[in-house]
């Protein structure tokens, strides 16, 4: 399909929603104002564990303008079963039920909702509520409760894996390292606060603008929790300013807004404060122990990796943290274990490459340590142990251009000029360090549907109930549809973020382009078929007898590949006497694929460090990515750039501190929760390595939403070691740790 003017695959198309976003025309969930809108403010619990003895609301209710105050003791009927509170991405366990009962399960849990005529009144009234607690002893400290760690295997997920005899191989190997890495709790902190505007439609139906990565997931949740029919609930999320995983599950602003709207028979908006953003899910703190051994040449002989992570008392959240080494490095003796400690916190949730970002930090730092122990270049060690198959599933890869990532990344970075010895490179009064790491992420696809509507005036609309949390999903959808039907991109409109649209999964896991993109491809293929059928109805049609593979759709026309005949799309539709073609398509991943599907990357980082006072500057990062076909290099590079910045944050800045005496996160604003600012971000160079993959899905795409952060923190930590000779195994790497090391 190569039209001159309508060939959009691989083109750096700018965001189609960019103008709406920078001009403010794009309205976010809590920007929808309507007459009679009431405002809710959630009241957080002050303790981590216990029971509410009493909530005194009389004074708060007396504040003029207050409509009602909902608590567990004063609320409409809610569902009770775990099943009703479950959602598409809920981990095994018993989901938190807002305002359901008097139990306090984590500090900051919403225990009341004040609804008033304006947000200021709601918040003022909330300050007049007094709560008596029966407090119970809490445990919130992962380190101090290591002894409570248990391997958890449920719903077919254990993530543990064993082959060969890792302990024996370790004991008999000449090169060995045993190390322990730590990561703190991190919070997503998208710019946009969670908010829901629940519009009371007056006929029992409710429409909700919600900040979510999955409008259908939220629609089903609301219908279940409130015992409503799915038809009576519509969830809209056309614009979402960042999610990073925090919006995959329905968050509590949604049920609270709906609860109040139904009880008051009035539209209600609930917005969280930045402080309350720290009461949602988070990346779990973890302790990772690794024991690696190699033979005298540096070939891995034993790989042991144990993950110790935190979860809540009521759900077991875990992702695959320890399996990645078996996809990257050939080794016959492997023992991989995941354990969880249940703590009195909210349940962790997916955050920026969950599983990969944490696991690869430890794996890739350990590989760096092994390289020094083996007296090998860190890149040489990885090439020496390169695996051509996924040793967990025992499958070859549908494509794996990781070698090329290493080669191109190293070349761009100048890796060959690296002096191996730590502390051997300097510039002025700074130590210079060069470090590298590998990144890997699963290239997933989930069943999804999309609709394409072509009208005789030449406009094309495509729609799917996915979200666009920032990666450019609108643009991706537009580009694929325009390319497929050969329609100028300006004539294409994409619709998403609406539970009324064809089914799509939550936007996460880097699987939106493969899932929704392939659904659009299928829907557009159906439109193509219909167009061809109509074109054949024209008198003396040059397309008579032609099949889809005999024609090209480009420049608003169908073109016959052999006889060169052309017919405009409107003409074809006129020939068939239709003014509208509407087709829905569904795409699902191949079942029982013989191949493993992964995205890969090689990250090279340079740091400059003033050792005396511990100031670290990440002066250069090269990230070479192999992710199948890159549909839009501009937006794809943006994804990697943003993710590398996230990796810098993970390496040097991000940390939510807990005071275990209070069982409470004490970091709850953006002055204390540091993310990189402009001054922390220098040159970031993104390379997309050519990778052809006809097996993975019809578009040949893998997704780039998460791969950019995986391995980045390790590359930086390894560069810091190379610069200083100090191995800080505890993120974030801050000045105090560098001075202490």
């Amino acid at each position: 399909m190569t039209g001159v003017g309508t060939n959009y695959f691989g083109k750096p198309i700018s965001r189609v929603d960019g103008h709406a976003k920078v001009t403010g025309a794009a309205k976010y969930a809590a920007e929808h104002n309507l007459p009679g809108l009431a405002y809710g403010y959630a009241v957080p619990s002050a303790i981590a564990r216990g029971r509410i003895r009493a909530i005194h609301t009389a004074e708060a209710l007396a504040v003029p303008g207050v409509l009602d105050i909902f608590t567990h003791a004063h609320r409409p009927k809610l569902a009770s079963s775990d099943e009703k509170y479950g959602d598409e991405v809920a981990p095994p366990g018993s989901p938190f039920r807002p305002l359901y009962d008097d139990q306090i399960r984590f500090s900051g849990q919403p225990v009341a909702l004040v609804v008033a005529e304006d947000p200021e009144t709601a918040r003022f009234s909330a300050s007049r509520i007094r709560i008596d607690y029966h407090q119970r002893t809490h445990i919130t400290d992962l380190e101090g409760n290591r002894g409570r760690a248990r391997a958890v295997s449920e719903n077919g997920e254990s993530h543990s894996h064993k082959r060969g005899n890792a302990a024996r191989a370790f004991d008999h190997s000449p090169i060995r390292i045993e190390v322990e890495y730590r990561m703190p709790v991190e919070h997503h902190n998208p710019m946009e606060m969670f908010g829901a505007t629940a519009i009371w439609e007056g006929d029992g139906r409710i429409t909700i603008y919600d900040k979510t990565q999955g409008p259908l997931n939220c629609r089903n949740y609301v219908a279940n929790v409130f015992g409503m029919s799915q038809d009576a609930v519509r969830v809209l999320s056309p614009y979402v300013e960042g999610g990073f995983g925090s919006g995959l599950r329905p968050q509590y602003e949604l049920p609270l807004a709906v609860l109040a709207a139904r009880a008051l028979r009035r539209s209600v908006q609930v917005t969280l404060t930045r402080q309350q953003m720290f009461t949602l899910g988070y990346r779990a703190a973890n302790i990772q122990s690794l024991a690696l051994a190699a033979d005298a040449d540096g070939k891995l002989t034993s790989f042991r990796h144990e993950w110790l992570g935190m979860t809540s008392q009521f759900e077991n959240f875990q992702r695959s943290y320890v399996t990645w080494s078996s996809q990257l490095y050939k080794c016959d003796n492997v023992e991989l274990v995941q354990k969880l400690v249940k703590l009195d916190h909210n349940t962790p949730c997916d955050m920026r490459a969950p599983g990969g970002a944490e696991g690869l930090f430890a794996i890739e730092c350990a590989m760096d340590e092994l390289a020094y122990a083996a007296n090998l270049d860190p890149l040489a060690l990885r090439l020496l142990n390169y695996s051509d198959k996924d040793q967990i599933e025992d499958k070859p890869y549908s494509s794996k251009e990781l070698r090329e990532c290493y080669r191109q990344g190293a070349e761009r970075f100048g890796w060959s000029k690296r002096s191996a010895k730590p502390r051997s490179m300097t510039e002025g009064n700074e130590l210079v360090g060069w470090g590298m790491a590998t990144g890997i992420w699963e290239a997933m696809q989930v069943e999804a549907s999309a609709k394409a509507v072509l009208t005789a005036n030449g406009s094309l609309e495509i729609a799917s109930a996915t979200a666009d949390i920032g990666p450019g999903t609108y643009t991706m959808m537009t580009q694929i549809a325009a390319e497929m039907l050969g329609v100028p991109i300006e004539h294409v409109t994409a619709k998403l973020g609406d539970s009324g649209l064809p089914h799509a999964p939550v936007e996460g896991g880097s699987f939106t382009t493969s899932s929704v993109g392939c659904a659009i491809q299928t829907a557009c293929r159906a439109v193509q078929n219909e167009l061809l059928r109509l074109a054949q109805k024209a008198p003396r049609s040059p397309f008579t007898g032609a099949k889809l593979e005999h024609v090209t759709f480009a420049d608003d026309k169908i073109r016959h590949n052999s006889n060169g005949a052309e017919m405009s799309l409107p003409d074809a539709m006129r020939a068939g006497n239709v003014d509208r073609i509407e087709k829905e398509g569904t795409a699902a991943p191949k079942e029982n694929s013989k191949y493993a599907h992964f995205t890969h990357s090689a990250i090279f980082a340079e740091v400059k460090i003033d050792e005396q006072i511990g100031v670290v500057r990440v002066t250069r990062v090269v990230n070479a990515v192999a992710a199948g076909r890159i549909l839009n290099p501009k937006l794809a590079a943006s994804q990697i750039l943003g993710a590398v910045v996230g990796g810098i944050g993970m390496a040097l800045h991000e940390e939510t501190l807990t005071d275990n005496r209070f069982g409470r996160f004490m970091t709850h604003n953006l002055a204390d929760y540091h993310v990189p600012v402009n001054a922390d971000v220098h040159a970031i160079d993104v390379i997309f390595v050519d990778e052809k993959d006809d097996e993975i899905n019809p578009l040949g795409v893998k997704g780039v939403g998460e791969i950019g952060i995986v391995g980045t923190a390790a590359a930086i930590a390894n560069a810091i070691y190379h610069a200083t000779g100090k191995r800080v195994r505890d993120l974030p790497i801050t000045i105090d740790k560098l001075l202490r090391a």
Partner: protein
Amino acid sequence: MNNFEFTRATDVADAVRQIAADPGATFVAGGTNLIDLIKEGVTKPSRLIDITRLQLNHVEDTSDGGLRIGALVPNSDLAYHPEIDKRYPLLASAILAGASPQLRNMATTGGNLLQRTRCFYFYDTTTPCNKREPGNGCSAIDGLNRMHAILGASEHCIATHPSDMCVALAALEARVLAAGRDGERSIAFADFHRLPGDTPHIDTNLNKDEIITAVELPPNGFAKNYSYLKIRDRLSYAFALVSVAAALEIENGVIRQARLALGGVAHKPWRDRRAEAQLSGTPATRESFMGAAQTLLSDARGFGHNDFKIELARRAIVRALSQAASATPQSQIEKRVR
């Protein structure tokens, strides 16, 4: 968050009258800290008196050759004021080391002096804090105290003063002009902020019914040999772990006069006259600087997480004095430490 009255002051006398009339009232100018404090329920003013229309936004020469800075001059304007840039570059540098451009555009000279600590516990009303509620205990002493004081702390409070600008003002020996019902008075900068003692809820010696009208700088701006070095957890937009304002007068390699003030280490900008006196008359060498750092930090004490600040402060003092002595002040644009 509380309901409050909002009124406007027409002139300084009116402002003083209004604040005296309502014990729960507070002034608001830029509001960059105050509004946060109100939203978090830390401060519950009954009335906000908007002083932004007072005519206190001029920078002018004083009769003794110094400079008078109106209390409402925005931090940005001050940092980029040509006279400040030329005569008091230490002050300009310190201001630019703080906050972000947006905050500096809003923040005022007087307000910067009155900003409150960023201690976690002070902001979280579910935890005890003597500064917020006198007598209910300090959570930081045995808690998360990485950002906290190593000098001049008390058993009641180990919070730090967060300002960068004030560290330079302390080094420059500025004076604070305050107007009250009995007229205007001038307060030495060293006497403006307080140590916590057993009254950590009182940050300054400004009376409740006084208003800051100006900050006065003496003629000597140490424009030749100075540096403001700020060490923090990211390269911009973070409060200081340790910051150092160093100002020297050097003749033939010998220090004639030295000023040394630290931020991020105490409840007020920390100045140590013993250390300064020790420098005076000595050669401008690393050895002298080490000695001064030793003296300044001789009583320093950590509380666990912040122990590292003592060594960090020592190194930062030596580095800032070296930068000052060699007339290569720390650039606030280039983040490499010189």
